């Protein structure tokens, strides 16, 4: 006899004491309240602005900005419109945020893992680092680096010269390769090398599984990428024209440059946030039960294998959510750059605000930028978290 397939009942209890009804009711109340407040704020603001004759709207974005920007990845001058100035600000913010997140992750992880070193000196230094950098306000640290770069380096006219690198209050100026078509071969070489490195890792992995021989999974691939890159560069005719900075009468000209503002913001944010990341990594690792470490040791795994194969994979799921917080903090803290004159999106919006008086619009733009980057970061980290979660049940 076959049994008819049964599906779960779909009918819900909607009496006024049911959980379902209560849940829906609270949601409706919340939406009405929040909507009402938002409407009231918007209407009030619009009315106030109308009464005082404040102009509103985003039309100012197409007008010429009328101010110069200290540093920009693309060319910008004062005749360019406001929207371009905004983009420069956004790109400056993103430049600090992305580089900062990468460097912070590396430095913070090293320091966090270092707190488990067998070497007492390393352990002590890592702890001292964390205590020092997380206990000094980040704004103070930015100002301190900026002061160091601008006060203790010589004037531009007396720039300190190390080889072709010049150091001065104006920042670091260094030789920059002049772009030629031959460089394309170099870039192509790097790409081919990356693919080769990927194949090497697959090969090494299968070789390890087949013979038990352990091969370097990091340094050899890195060497492959670099070597093939150099080969490509040679094939492209080894273009080696550099734009070498020259000391003129008033400034060091030519070459690539990093401004003291950029270096101070980046260094300050990285060193500060790395202390927190180190703590996140440390607490993640020590959240793994002590028995795990003992079992790994009893099985004869070396310290490094224990960390890589047993502790870190389990620590990761504890580490990722607070790590997201640190990345968001770094991005948002980059707005402190305004204090030392680095032209990030806040600093440029500020200038635009002062010139045009469109306060609501400028603030809204800043919020939009931070909201977008933060949400993107969160989405990426949530995706990564879901991917690395371990199946336990």
């Amino acid at each position, binding site marked *: 006899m076959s049994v008819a397939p049964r599906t779960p009942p779909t009918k819900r209890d909607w009496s006024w004491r049911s959980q379902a009804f209560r849940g829906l009711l609270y949601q409706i109340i919340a939406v009405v309240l929040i909507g009402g407040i938002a409407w009231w704020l918007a209407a009030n603001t619009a009315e106030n602005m109308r009464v005082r004759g404040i102009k509103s709207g985003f039309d100012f974005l197409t007008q010429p900005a009328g101010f110069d920007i200290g540093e920009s990845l693309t060319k910008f001058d004062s005749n360019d419109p406001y929207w371009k100035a905004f983009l420069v600000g956004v790109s400056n913010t993103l430049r600090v945020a992305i580089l900062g997140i990468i460097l912070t992750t590396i430095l913070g992880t090293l320091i966090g893992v270092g707190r488990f070193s067998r070497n007492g000196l390393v352990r002590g230094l890592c702890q001292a680092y964390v205590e020092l950098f997380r206990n000094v306000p980040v704004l103070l640290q930015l100002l301190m680096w900026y002061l160091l770069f601008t006060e203790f380096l010589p004037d531009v006219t007396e720039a300190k010269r190390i080889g072709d690198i010049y150091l001065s209050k104006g920042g670091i100026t260094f030789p920059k390769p002049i772009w030629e078509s031959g460089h394309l071969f170099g870039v192509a070489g790097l790409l081919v090398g990356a693919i080769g490195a990927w194949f090497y890792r697959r090969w090494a992995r299968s070789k390890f599984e087949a013979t038990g021989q352990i091969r370097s999974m990091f340094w050899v691939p890195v060497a492959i990428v670099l070597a093939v890159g150099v080969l490509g560069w040679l094939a492209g005719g080894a273009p080696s024209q550099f734009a070498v900075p020259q000391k003129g009468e008033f400034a060091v000209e030519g070459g690539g440059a990093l401004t003291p503002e950029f270096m101070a913001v980046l260094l300050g944010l990285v060193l500060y946030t790395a202390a927190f990341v180190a703590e996140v990594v440390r607490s993640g690792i020590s959240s793994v039960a002590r028995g*795990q470490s003992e079992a790994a040791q009893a099985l004869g795994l070396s310290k490094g294998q224990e960390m890589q194969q047993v502790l870190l994979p389990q620590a990761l799921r504890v580490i990722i959510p607070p790590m997201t917080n640190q990345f968001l903090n770094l991005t948002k803290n980059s707005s402190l750059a305004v204090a030392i004159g680095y032209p990030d999106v806040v600093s440029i919006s500020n200038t635009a605000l002062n010139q045009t008086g469109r306060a609501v619009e400028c603030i809204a733009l800043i919020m939009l930028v931070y909201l977008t980057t933060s949400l993107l970061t969160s989405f990426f980290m949530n995706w990564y978290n879901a991917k690395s979660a371990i199946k336990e049940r």
Partner: protein
Amino acid sequence: MTTQNQDNIIVFDKVNKWYGNSFHVLRDINLNVRRGERIVVCGPSGSGKSTLIRCINRLEEHQEGHLIVDGTELTDDVKAIDKIRKEVGMVFQQFNLFPHLTVLENLTLSPMYVGKMPKKEAEEKAMLQLKRVRIAEQAGKYPLQLSGGQQQRVAIARALCLTPKIMLFDEPTSALDPEMIKEVLDVMVEMANQGITMICVTHEMGFAKAVADRVIFMDQGQIVEQNTPHEFFNNPQTDRSKDFLSKILGH
């Protein structure tokens, strides 16, 4: 160095250990374990049983005296420690399986990374061990999907994968429900019959009577009494062991 008999696979010679500066946890331990001998260690809680067996694979280090395992003296020498850990398997009270790896991966991790064994061979050997503990069908599952008794049997299989000469058990059944205790003890009895050297901290008297060559009774960091299981359980010599036995038999 002491005169050591080739037949002694483990030699404790006046071993002393302290926790911190003041807590003297092992006092003048002298103990010779013969190759293939099966020893049960018992004693009241806090008497230093775990500490004693954890010294053998250097999860704890002793500060005084000599400890020689399979001809190698345990010192700070990393090479010696590596060698001994390959020869000594350990099973813990809390299983300590790696939750992020499948049962099979738990078993192959050490043979592959420490024993430099090809994956295929490691997996074949692992399956063999899983069959031995009668749990081969669970190879693809994750540890936390298994019952306590199954987890402990996986842990035993994992320890056996390096083909150790010595197996250490630290209260392997005391975190288990009664009906699971038997399935784990059965596996251990089978192992005992195959001639591996075993040191087992346990209060399972049935197990001690069935397989142990010798029972060691510890109290306050000292080996107070040692005897055959029959003699020890029927005719304890010291007041402390009498007291202890009356307690564990009492309930």
